[in-house]
């Protein structure tokens, strides 16, 4: 016996979503033009989001490319009932952008910090459940220390960039960073986090 096994059709939805959903369904069948159409419709929003967070055109472009390649790969398993393709694209853009920001900030903070501080950075960063505790501990830091933490970790500033922005010597940036990381570790230990 010879049997034909077919791919299921995409579900119907309201007009705007149906158009995007149908494009995703076509992309799931290897239709590169369909993915190109989705890109033309929604890449500008994704690009604006990535660019606003990263402030680096090349990295923002890399994020946009990664997101649409991920859509291409995952199109067969995309479920329109979970949200529109545009929502999926924006969610993934935010996630991948924040991943890059963390890596950049960690790398730059690592360049500035002592070996002990670098180990503290890794312990903090490798514990996602501590994100809220970290935010609370940062909020409790003295203003001058918190400013350095903010510039290095959240803006991804280098030592000279943070020093210039805060109008302090670079050595002061390093010492405040060390104090901030030490305070964060003690605060997290007091909360019973490993």
């Amino acid at each position, binding site marked *: 016996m*010879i049997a*034909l096994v077919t791919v299921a059709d995409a579900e119907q939805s309201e007009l705007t979503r149906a158009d995007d959903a149908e494009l995703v369904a076509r992309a799931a069948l290897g239709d590169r033009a369909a993915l190109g159409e989705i890109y033309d419709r929604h890449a500008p929003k994704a690009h604006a989001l990535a660019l606003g967070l990263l402030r680096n055109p090349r990295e923002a472009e890399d994020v*946009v*490319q990664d997101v649409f390649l991920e859509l291409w*790969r995952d199109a067969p398993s995309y479920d329109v009932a979970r949200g529109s393709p545009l*929502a999926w694209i*924006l*969610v993934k853009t*935010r996630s991948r952008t*924040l991943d890059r920001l963390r890596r950049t900030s960690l790398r730059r903070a690592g360049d500035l910090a002592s070996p002990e501080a670098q180990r503290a950075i890794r312990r903090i960063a490798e514990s996602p459940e501590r994100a809220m505790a970290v935010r609370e501990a940062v909020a409790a830091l003295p203003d001058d220390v918190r400013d350095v933490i903010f510039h290095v970790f959240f803006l991804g500033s280098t030592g000279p960039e943070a020093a210039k922005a805060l109008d302090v010597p670079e050595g002061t940036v390093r010492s405040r960073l060390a104090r901030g990381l030490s305070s964060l570790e003690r605060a997290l230990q007091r909360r019973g986090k490993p």
Partner: protein
Amino acid sequence: MKGRDDERDAELPDWAHAIEAMTAPVTPPSALRARLLARLEGPDRYRPFGALLRQVFDLEGVALDELLERASTPSAWTPGITPVRRYLDFSPGPSASALAPRAGLVTLAAGARIPAHRHEEPEVMLVLEGRVTDNHGHDARPGDRIVSEVGSSHTVDIPDAGGAVVALLHGKIHLLGI
């Protein structure tokens, strides 16, 4: 590549709509579109069929990536004889090998016909591009599979002007009428 924010995807549709409303679009450089499409023409060409390829051919993650990379390399293909334009052999995984011994990507010429043949071993044909039809009324498009049991026979046609590309798990066949 996964980030911690993936855990909060469930709460993000409203956020995503808010971002959509607030964000003024910034069109990326045209070169980015060109790079993306170049990837789709290259190593990521058959990526949407990754799950099916893994399933049918029992390919682990690295083996799939290697196959897709080879498929995008012209020198990895071997010229064939009509109706086969070119083919690329690869090794199926253990459970697929237990079904049929050989696997390959095959480019079939537009308008070609695979003459009537009987399957001496099972065969699975996964369509990646184009259309494949047979004399049983099957009309297979990308993502579809034609599964042939032992002893079955058919004649296969490639009706579209662009030809077809299939991934084939196959064994011995016997040409009929010869």
